């Protein structure tokens, strides 16, 4: 969340409102589309972009805990909700139905797909781009966010330093780990307080509070191409949302599930979910490194 843009990927050259709108739309649709084909499309899109933008190592690392979540929800659901009509198994007095397992699996996939989309969004909408979105309207909020973003890593580094200091001098070795924790926290607190005094001096020396209204360095380079991209995404998202709504309204898990059929109506949604991956791949192809 606090890292700078380290990947060059989809929407790199757009105004940040374009990826922001895209991810808002895709996450909204993904949350409400509780239908087997739709959740699979959403998962496929989220995974594909995660591989493309975040790399296979981080994606697989995430799947290590995400796949068990799917399995867990799929198993847990039929134990708690005994609905459905096709008996799959009987555990003592508990009846387990196929429909219930399908519902659980579907919910698990939906959950993981949504998490993936959030991770993808965080990868594209880095902090500096989010700031650019809010900078004009909320300059002070932007500044506070910016300050916090530099203080957190500093605090982490310092806690390491303080820990080293207390561990390295034998006379300082505290009796228990709880006491050590308190001492480290105490030390960090006084260090940060002291720093904040000097920082506020540095801020006032540079005219903090001199004017009622601060100006903002970031420009708002919203161009026609951004407007067109936004319009395209909005249209595609609206069409997908409508068709996904139709698909969901014709689907039900209980008491029995209808047969899934091939339907053109899934195509716009698939196109929407695969859009950033396609953009990313196109960039890679252009730079001649498909690997």
């Amino acid at each position, binding site marked *: 969340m606090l890292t*700078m843009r380290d990947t060059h990927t989809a929407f790199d050259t757009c105004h940040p409102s374009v990826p922001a709108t895209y991810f808002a739309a895709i996450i909204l649709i993904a949350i409400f589309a509780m239908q087997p084909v739709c959740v699979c499309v959403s998962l496929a899109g989220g995974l594909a972009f995660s591989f493309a933008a975040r790399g296979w190592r981080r994606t697989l690392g995430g799947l290590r805990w995400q796949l068990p979540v799917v399995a867990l929800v799929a198993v847990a659901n039929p134990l708690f909700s005994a609905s459905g009509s096709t008996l799959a198994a009987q555990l003592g007095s508990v009846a387990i139905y196929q429909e219930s397992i399908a519902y659980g699996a579907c919910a698990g996939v939906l959950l993981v797909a949504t998490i993936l989309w959030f991770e993808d969004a965080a990868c594209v909408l880095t*902090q*500096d781009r989010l700031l650019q979105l809010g900078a004009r309207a909320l*300059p002070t909020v932007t*500044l506070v966010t*910016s*300050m916090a*973003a*530099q203080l957190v*890593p*500093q605090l982490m*580094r*310092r806690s390491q*330093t*303080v820990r*080293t*200091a*207390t*561990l*390295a*001098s*034998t*006379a*300082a*070795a505290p009796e228990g780990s709880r006491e050590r924790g308190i*001492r480290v926290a*105490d*030390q960090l607190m*006084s*260090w940060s*307080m*002291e*720093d*904040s005094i*000097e*920082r506020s*001096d*540095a*801020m*006032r*020396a*540079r*005219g*903090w*509070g*001199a*004017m009622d*209204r*601060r*100006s*903002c*360095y970031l*420009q708002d380079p919203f161009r026609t191409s951004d407007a067109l991209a936004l319009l395209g995404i909005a249209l595609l998202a609206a069409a997908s949302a409508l068709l996904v709504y139709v698909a969901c309204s014709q689907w039900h898990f209980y008491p029995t599930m209808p047969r899934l059929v091939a339907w053109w109506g899934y195509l716009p949604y698939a196109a929407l979910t695969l859009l950033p991956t396609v953009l990313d791949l196109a960039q890679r192809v252009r730079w001649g490194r498909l690997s």
Partner: protein
Amino acid sequence: MNALEYADVSFTYPATDTEPSPSPVLEHVSLAVPEGAFALITGSTGSGKSTLLRLAKPEVAPTGTLGGNVLAFGRDVRTLSSVESAQTVGLVFQSPDSQIVCDTVWHEMAFGLENLGTPVPEMRRRVAETCMFFGMEPWFRRQTANLSGGQRQMLALAATLAMRPRLLLLDEPTSMLDPVAEKDFLAMLFRANRELGVTVVVATHAPEPMRDVATCAFRVEDGHVRELSLGEAVDACAFRPDGVVSASEGVAASGSKPALSFRDTWFRYSRDADWVLRGLDLEVPEGEVTALVGGNGSGKTTLLQLACGTLAAQRGRVSRPHAASQAYLLQSPRAILSAQTVREELLLWSNGAGYGEAEVAEMMERLGLEGVAARNPLDLSGGQQQLVAFAKVLLTRPDLLVLDEPTKGLDAVACTKLARLVQELREEGRSVLLATHDLAFVSAVADSVSLLFDGGVTCTERPDEFLAGSWLYHA
């Protein structure tokens, strides 16, 4: 016209419970810095240099009773509006860590101009020109948290200059930097002075590196300020280790087991990182003072942390016979200061290390800390904090004392006191390992110097031999 002028200025801090009638810090000070000058305000730690400087910037001036007038370009600074003040007088502080406000370099550069409500085109132009002047384009989009101390201090200077002040005040701007970063910083400050015509006033206790660029010097002593020649100002602040027995004259216990030894030590911070130490061998003889020198990032601090056992080597053997009685002084003294007063701070480890009030009183007297016994350690200057931290580790009488840049931020007087105490430890047969850039200190206290380069020890020699054969280092 004078860029900065003090006319009969006196200043007294407000009375406190511990000091009901404080004596004035500055008495009838009159001085004038002409426009375009590069002026040095020298004096020992705590002599009132910072107070003098801050009085020219009412936004950060200390509270107290001020008599007389402080004029910037002929106008009393107290009559300047805060916008005028920010555009006329810039102030750069000591600590590279605490004066950075924003998370990215570009935001930090723009911060001051945003505060003044500068129109966007004008602001972007000023930021761009300042960056070009400083050659900061390669790191313009980087995070400030990932910059080195030298880069952060350079950024603080650039961010202040982006507001285009005509007078720039700097309060010990390089005392937290290593010599290489200090040179870079001063070179840039000099260019700002000569090419941009900014009047520069630097408060410092170590004017030597600025001798060639400065145009005039003042000395603050006992509340009075006098103008003196650059040579005199540098000499008055020079470190003269009188009374410190030169280490190489003493007889060291030889042949015994080393106090610390590294054999074929390999270390890196993560699997993908480069090796910091590559098969390093080093012995710290028992009862001697061993100094480590080397460039930035040569692994000095890493080596010290391995010596203390807070890091573990991936390969090789580190033998630490004194693991049960050791002390480590980090580069940032704040990491071990937490009590409310200096006295409490020094008593904090008394139970674990078996010393008492008497020893604390004696140590405070020896380091000249009696005057600040009742003050909060974090309110003290950087140099005084360093002394308190040093006193704190020294009171534990460790068999092995590990020091990281012990003289950073210290004035000559404090350096001499430190050297004496290190010598005393050695006479008691205790071992000291220290990493430093300060060769004058090394030649005053150390028995041997090891040069660290490319992850290994390049040579180990006596300090006089080392200096005689060195192309780069001078005492």
